[in-house]
């Protein structure tokens, strides 16, 4: 819900770039996590880097969320996300994911 501006100072450098393959970490911590369950453990391609934003998991604990986390839009093939997906092979879902939730596949 929180709408914030990208933060330039105190931001972690971006580890990934557009076109990179990334895997979403499969973890289930408690708290205000903005990585949807359905995408955890899935592999996709970075569509773009959106800038760095305060970490919402920290903000929810009344902390400043710094250093800011680079935020990515990651594109997943629907057939990779849902094994029984019914639709075109080119259908995709794009999800915004913070860097600390991404790893190299």
């Amino acid at each position: 819900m929180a709408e914030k501006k990208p933060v330039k100072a105190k931001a972690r450098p971006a580890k990934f770039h557009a076109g990179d393959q990334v895997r979403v970490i499969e973890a289930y911590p408690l708290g205000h996590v903005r990585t949807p369950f359905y995408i955890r453990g899935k592999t996709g391609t970075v569509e773009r880097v959106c800038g760095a934003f305060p970490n919402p998991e920290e903000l929810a604990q009344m902390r400043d969320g710094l250093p800011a986390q680079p935020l990515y839009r990651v594109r997943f093939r629907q057939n990779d996300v849902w094994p029984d997906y019914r639709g075109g092979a080119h259908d995709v879902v794009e999800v915004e994911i913070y860097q600390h939730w991404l790893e190299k596949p």
Partner: protein
Amino acid sequence: MNDPGPYRPLTYFQLMEISLRELLVEKGVVTEEEVAEEVEAMRKRGYERGARVVARAWVDPEYKKRLLANGTEACEELGLEIPALKLLAVENTPEVHNAIVCTLCSCYPRMLLGIPPEWYKSRNYRSRMVREPRAVLAEFGLQIPEQVAIRVHDSTADMRYLVLPMRPAGTEGWSEERLASLVTRDSMIGVAVPKVS
């Protein structure tokens, strides 16, 4: 036993809202009038701003390029203030159809489209739009051909999305205002396409 009837006690969040508002008024940060005006302004905001952005992009290819490159700046160009919002416009083409959802809550470009419709916040739409978008779009009366890719955008974090629909055929020479009247809220969420009636 003690059925309160239609008179229910305040919920936790209602109580919190009242307490905070009264404190802010008491401390002179805002007045009751200002709060009421802001609530009214939010309620009155419709999707006309979004329609203006789309119509401008339809008539001005250079503006469209700027909109797709930086949605926030392109809105500011039209005098639309969209504070603390990073806007991404996503373009429908003969090959790609875009649709917006927020599976986590109800993130929505309110400054351009106003208050989100009830269905946008429903569990049904939020869970099924990523899982079976073609079936959901069909329920809105929108059949997307198999060869057209569906691109669903899950608005999970700090971006907000606006679908730039395709300009309908038969609108050649139309004024920007007339074009804007074709642009519906649903076509900017991606569950409909603009039509010439």
